[in-house]
């Protein structure tokens, strides 16, 4: 029996080895490509993935993809959704998202991780490869996950003490200082030596609620750490979430202190929640698309702008191995292209799309610089995954204004909006105060999902992300 067993295992292991080897070869030949979509919650990741899959599936009759060069050359034969190998990850709810779009609602915000794999068959152009085979395929893996969790990434290279320091420094700055002052009072009056475990539990609960309040406020607070505190996923009410940042004097006797417990839980959270998550989903990433909702920030003003700027810079540099180089050591990722894109460009009159792009570039200049220094190709773009407005020209005060027309989200009234001028130069605080913006959220108009969704510059995004792989 044992021999048969051993043989059986042997066969299985050989098979899996062959499978692994084949995957490795295909990776080497760039037949599989993993695209990572980063973006804070509400930046349009789900809408993007839905539109991305949709454009690829409907590419056959699509006339609106002129900048996807392989498609313009009529080299793309077919594309379809295929099952992927990581079977423990739920499938991306493409059809659900699509039917939601068809019924006029934006897809629900993501609360758990999911994945999709699209296989694209194409005609080979390279004159040497063409001699070996005329057709090849490219598998594109794309992962959707809650944007809130992304903010745990910078936690990985912090210890509890520095994290607490960072947190209270962050908490003292606008716009979040207002929301957090209650919590700050609470923590300042806390006597750590007499704190029991049940106190910690109730304090943690309060802390999580404060963070959630920050999240749901309209003040434009982005850097809400730890991410699972706002969106616990399957960790709801697990003891690992029962901690909060705490600053204490160095000379206090720590033995048997509640501080030790907090630090332990923080480290556990880091090691067993955050690290596996990023190792699982963000290692082996080849291309990264970072979605930024610039319009919300413009609406919310200077403080929110600064907050988003620092948040995104932290994110970008931690992905792309800035000075610290720690992620590289851990996972050896190979991102060689980064696209930083402003989604929802259709909410902006078309003559200002370039300004939108320039604004984004200005905002993330230093982060881009760091990434670019690593030899990563960085591109900026303003696009919209699903176009829900039409550009129009309105007469106002004897002037012609470039506006956008669409259904306002919430009221469902048809409106024509002129949002103000997006600045192309970095602005000072007082300039920010003088500037007025009114970017309206638009609803999805009636559209059919039988054909490709209307989009704006999705073809350029596709080309930038995977275009060079169509040999």
């Amino acid at each position: 029996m044992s021999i048969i067993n051993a043989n059986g295992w042997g066969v299985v292991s050989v098979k899996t080895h062959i499978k692994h080897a084949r995957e490795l070869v295909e990776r080497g030949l760039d037949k599989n490509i993993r695209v990572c979509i980063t973006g804070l919650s509400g930046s349009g990741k789900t809408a993007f993935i839905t539109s991305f899959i949709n454009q690829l599936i409907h590419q056959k009759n699509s006339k609106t993809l002129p900048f996807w060069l392989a498609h313009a050359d009529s080299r793309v034969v077919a594309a379809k959704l295929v099952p992927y190998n990581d079977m423990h990850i739920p499938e991306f709810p493409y059809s659900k998202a699509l039917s939601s779009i068809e019924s006029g609602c934006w897809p629900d915000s993501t609360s758990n991780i999911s994945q999709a794999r699209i296989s694209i068959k194409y005609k080979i152009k390279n004159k040497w490869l063409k001699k070996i085979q005329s057709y090849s395929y490219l598998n594109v893996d794309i992962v959707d996950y809650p944007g809130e969790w992304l903010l745990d990434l910078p936690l990985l290279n912090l210890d509890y003490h520095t994290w607490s320091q960072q947190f209270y420094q962050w908490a003292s700055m606008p716009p979040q200082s207002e929301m957090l002052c209650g919590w700050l009072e609470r923590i300042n009056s806390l006597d750590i030596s007499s704190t029991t475990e049940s106190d910690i539990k109730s304090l943690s609960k309060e802390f999580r609620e404060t963070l959630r309040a920050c999240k749901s406020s309209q003040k434009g607070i982005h850097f809400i750490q730890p991410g699972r505190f706002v969106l616990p996923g399957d960790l709801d009410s697990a003891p690992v979430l029962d901690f909060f940042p705490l600053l204490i004097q160095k000379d206090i006797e720590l033995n048997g202190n509640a501080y030790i417990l907090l630090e332990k839980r923080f480290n556990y959270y880091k090691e067993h929640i955050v690290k596996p998550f990023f190792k699982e989903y963000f290692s082996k990433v080849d291309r990264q698309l970072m979605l930024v909702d610039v319009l919300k920030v413009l609406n919310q003003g200077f403080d929110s702008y600064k907050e988003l700027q620092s948040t995104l810079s932290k994110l970008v540099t931690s992905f792309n191995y800035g000075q610290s180089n720690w992620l590289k050591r851990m996972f050896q990722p190979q991102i060689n292209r980064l696209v930083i894109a402003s989604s929802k460009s259709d909410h902006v009159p078309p003559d200002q799309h370039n300004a939108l792009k320039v604004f984004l570039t200005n905002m993330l200049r230093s982060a881009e610089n760091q990434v670019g220094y690593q030899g990563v190709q960085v591109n900026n773009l303003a696009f919209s995954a699903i176009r829900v407005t039409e550009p129009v020209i309105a007469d106002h005060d004897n002037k012609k204004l470039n506006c956008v027309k669409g259904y306002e989200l919430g009221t469902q009234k048809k409106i024509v909006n002129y949002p103000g001028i997006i600045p192309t130069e970095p602005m000072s605080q007082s300039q920010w105060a003088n500037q007025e913006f009114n970017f309206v959220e638009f609803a999805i108009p009636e559209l059919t999902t039988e054909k490709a969704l209307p989009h704006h510059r999705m073809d350029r995004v596709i080309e930038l992300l995977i275009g060079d792989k169509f040999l």
Partner: protein
Amino acid sequence: MSTKPVKFDSETIKVESSEAHSNVLEDSVAINDKEKKLPSETSMVKLKPKKTKSKLLKVFGWSFASFIVTASIYEAWQFVDSMFEINKVLGGAVSLIVLVTIITGAGALIKGRAKGKRLIKRNKVRKLLAQFNANETYGKATDYLDDVSEEFSSEVDISQSLALYRQATHKSHNDSELIRIYNDQVLSGLDELAMEAIRKHATESALMVALSPLAIADMALVAWRSSRMIQEVSRIYGCPQTAFGRLGLTKQVATNLMLAGASEFVAEAGVELLGKGLAATVSTKAAQGIGVGILVSRLGIQTMQLCRPIEFDKNNKPKLSQIRKLLTSKILSIVTSKKEEKNLKQGEEND
């Protein structure tokens, strides 16, 4: 433009599609997105055309021309007058001839001028479009592109590619994107057509030179063929040139060939000479033919550059190497087959 945001109710405000009024808008985007380049880079600096001669020379030119014109008018007048003195009928006939000459000449000149204007206009449009492309403006290029399409469609049927272009574009595309799509959808077809014409004329003249027994006739042949080719290529791009205009175009092409062609020439020369060397081992005449063919195709490509409303970029710049290969293989096949025939004949005679 006001900076305050405004939100209108769709019922109360009158709006129009943004395509119609595209160029009334001020553009809010300044030139700032261009990647910074060192000012020393060649694309940023350009040699200005040489200032025309000294003032003295200018005055001389004008006075000389007016002297000639006055003298010829006076001569003609005297001639007609003397004819009248001889016979009234003869005088009438001669003055009629003079009148017809003047009218047709002036007509041809004006017509040629009007068509030649298209080329000048094309030059301006090309510069403007390059500017729009670089600055990623919005709504300015459409009118120019439509104009150019109209000029194209007077000579070539581009309705199908134009329809594809219209399908691919949307009101929200900026000028740079429109220009690129236009380039890919409409102009690439015209490029192919033009290249076909160039290939045809280049091989023809190469063959003629390779086969012509008279060296002096070569020059005339080349002049004739290349002139025909320039006419055809310019027609494909919607700015057909009459005899007068063609002269101007030819001059421009030649100047461009000398100015811009130098670097290209260096790049291609090595290979060209190699091709020539190969041919020269077979026959000097064939080598001359290939050389002439390449020259003609270079002229053709320069003409394309002058007539295109959008500059070539790195990816779609036509390459000489393909034409060279074609020429070499054609000429070599003819020459070698001739030699074989000779050998065969000799062999038969020997038998």
